[in-house]
């Protein structure tokens, strides 16, 4: 009885502590997001088209049911997932390799670590321009390089057809996002005590075995965070699509982010735009919880 009582008291004080510690962050987030989020939810439950002032009305979940029964939702959803799976795989694999490299001690490592951030630091407008120029079928740099290397005999328009357009969107997107993932994994690698490796070497473990049995398990928590973050980013992808393909050719790269943009800013249909954004948010949350349960919880058990 007594010990149970003590446990409750302890838990309560920890709860109060948690409240106090997390208050500033929660307040900042809430102050900025809560009311706008409420407005977005409100709009999603209304027929609210700015071009038809005076005709706004509450329609319950109709916007949602409209989307869920419309191929204009399911088709982009499928495209979004295709893109997100590709992007997350590329980003996670490459940034893991890069993080391992940058974790080695060698002269010049510091500079390399800072330079790694360059793609991320380029303003998005300039990044868009850069990729437009790299991929252009006439004056593009990649075409010139491939041609000189004899890989192609004629300049290619890689954005003109599937699947190459999707592949190149993933590449361009990943290039910009790999620095963040690498940075996180690199900091995660610092948590692995060096003596574990030393005893493994004494036991005769090879490089690959050490990676598989020490690095990977001990990096699991950070790796799962990176996967969750990158998945959230990728499911919301918009910028690179907007710039390189505008959803084309023939809707092949029409992702939900693009639909949200056109509904909200082009059709000025805030009801439809907000409700599809809520749906994407819910799907993303579901994915995040799923990934967390599978990846991160495994660490604790």
């Amino acid at each position, binding site marked *: 009885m007594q010990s149970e009582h003590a446990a409750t008291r302890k838990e309560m004080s920890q709860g109060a502590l948690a409240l106090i510690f997390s208050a500033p962050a929660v307040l900042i987030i809430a102050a900025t997001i809560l009311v706008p989020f409420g407005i977005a939810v409100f709009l999603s439950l209304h027929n609210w088209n*700015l*071009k*038809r*002032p005076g005709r706004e009305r509450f329609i319950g979940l109709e916007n949602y049911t409209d989307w869920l029964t419309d191929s*204009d939702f399911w088709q982009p959803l499928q495209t979004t997932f295709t893109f997100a799976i590709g992007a997350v795989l590329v980003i996670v694999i490459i940034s893991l390799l890069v993080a391992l490299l940058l974790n080695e001690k060698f002269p010049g490592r510091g500079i390399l670590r800072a330079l790694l951030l360059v793609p991320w630091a380029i303003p998005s407008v300039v990044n868009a321009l850069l990729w*437009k120029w790299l991929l*252009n*079928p*006439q*004056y593009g740099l990649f075409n010139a390089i491939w041609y000189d290397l004899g890989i192609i005999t*004629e*300049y290619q*328009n890689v*954005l*003109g057809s599937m699947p190459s*357009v999707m592949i190149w969107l993933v590449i361009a997107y990943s290039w910009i996002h790999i620095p963040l993932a690498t940075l996180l994994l690199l900091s995660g690698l610092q948590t692995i005590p060096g003596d574990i490796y030393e005893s493994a070497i004494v036991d005769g473990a090879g490089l690959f075995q050490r990676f598989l049995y020490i690095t990977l398990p001990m990096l699991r928590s950070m790796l799962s965070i990176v996967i969750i973050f990158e998945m959230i980013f990728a499911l919301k992808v918009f910028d690179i699509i907007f710039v*390189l*393909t*505008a*959803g*084309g*050719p*023939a*809707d092949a790269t*029409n992702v939900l982010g693009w639909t949200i943009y*056109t509904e909200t*800013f*082009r*059709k*000025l*249909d805030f009801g439809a735009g907000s409700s599809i954004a809520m749906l994407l948010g819910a799907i993303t949350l579901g994915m995040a919880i799923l990934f967390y349960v599978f990846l991160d919880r495994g660490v604790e058990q």
Partner: protein
Amino acid sequence: MLSSKKLIVLLALFMLLIGSVALAQDDGLKLTGWPYEVDVVTENLGRFTDQSGHDAVFLPFPSNEYRDKMVASFVAGTEFDVAYVRDSYLAEWAAAGWILPISGLEGADELLADLPAGIIEQMSYEGEVYGLPYYSGVQTMAYNAAHLAAAGIESPPATWDEMLEQAQMIKDAGVVDYPILMQLRSGENYLLREWETLTAARGGRLFDDDFNPLFQEEGSAAWQALDWLTQGLDMGVIDPASITDDDGTLLMMAGTTSFMTTTDYTLKAMNDPEQSNAAGDIKNALIPGTDEVRSGTWGYVRLYSITNNASDKDAAWQLVQFLGGKDATGVYYVPKRWALEFGLGFSPAPLYEDEEVRNSISGWIDPDLLSEQSEYAISRPYRFVPFFSDWEIGSWGPLQAAILGDADKGDVLAELADEWNELKDDWGY
């Protein structure tokens, strides 16, 4: 590691920087728009202040995001009194009540009397005029004369079939890989506009004056236009990049494209030796037609409108008159300046007869051909209904699929017509 003291000092420094940004709260008129020649606009505003006694300031925003910026600004309650507007979203802004009609305001009739009917139509929504023109013009054809000469071609094509033939000759002569660029990308500046050009130049239109779709009828000019695109792509003379390219002007300037339809003022950049590798070779020609139809095109207008939040409507109207019409001395000061010094297209009739203006643009475009081109401009009243962009956005994907041969043209066009008719009924047009 940084100590907490250093952190506090650092934070205080940043906060000081943030606090140091003074909010410019003046009571003058606020003009917003895209940042073309900001200093010239500011200079013009100085003249306005001298003449009217009203202070006015120009606060520009990036041109590519201007529309989105203004949507947010209007929803939140805009602080701008006068704003640049493109005809492509005039109907939406007017329907939302964000910009105000100028019809009936003092002096409006006199200024509107100087403007061609086509221009007024493109500044109107439901019978009211919403501003005065900043610059205007028509879509025309640009071609690379050096490419034609290298393939032994003497004059630019008069018909679309001839264009394919000439393009084949240019390709065969090894001058360029893909002589024709068509702007078929998704987006309000590309696919539909190109389709309208191709349709107009076959003597047709996408919709009639009662907003009934015409494109889905078998053998319609619009249908033929899509067939022509498919044919050109299959022949390998229309650049496959047409489907995604977002700036054909650059390809003309690179010297890798021989033909494109384009907005008149882009010829200036194409013939600017600093920007263009093809400077001097780019000429304008009439947009080709058919055996029966000589040519076809459409016009565009950028205009100045008074916003719904203008604090002093009289002063805002004075500013619009100054910018888009006459200044206090009774001359078209600002429009003439844009035309003379910057080659921007103008609308007021008196400027057409101005020798000075005519001569100033002849360095980079043939003014006679351009003025003939504008005679073939069709009117597009269907663009000035508020649901046009709702329909347009949904049309890009299916049209691209039809052009690329991934979908049946008849099916796509029938479905697009159905979608239009649904919207039309829904809006009560």
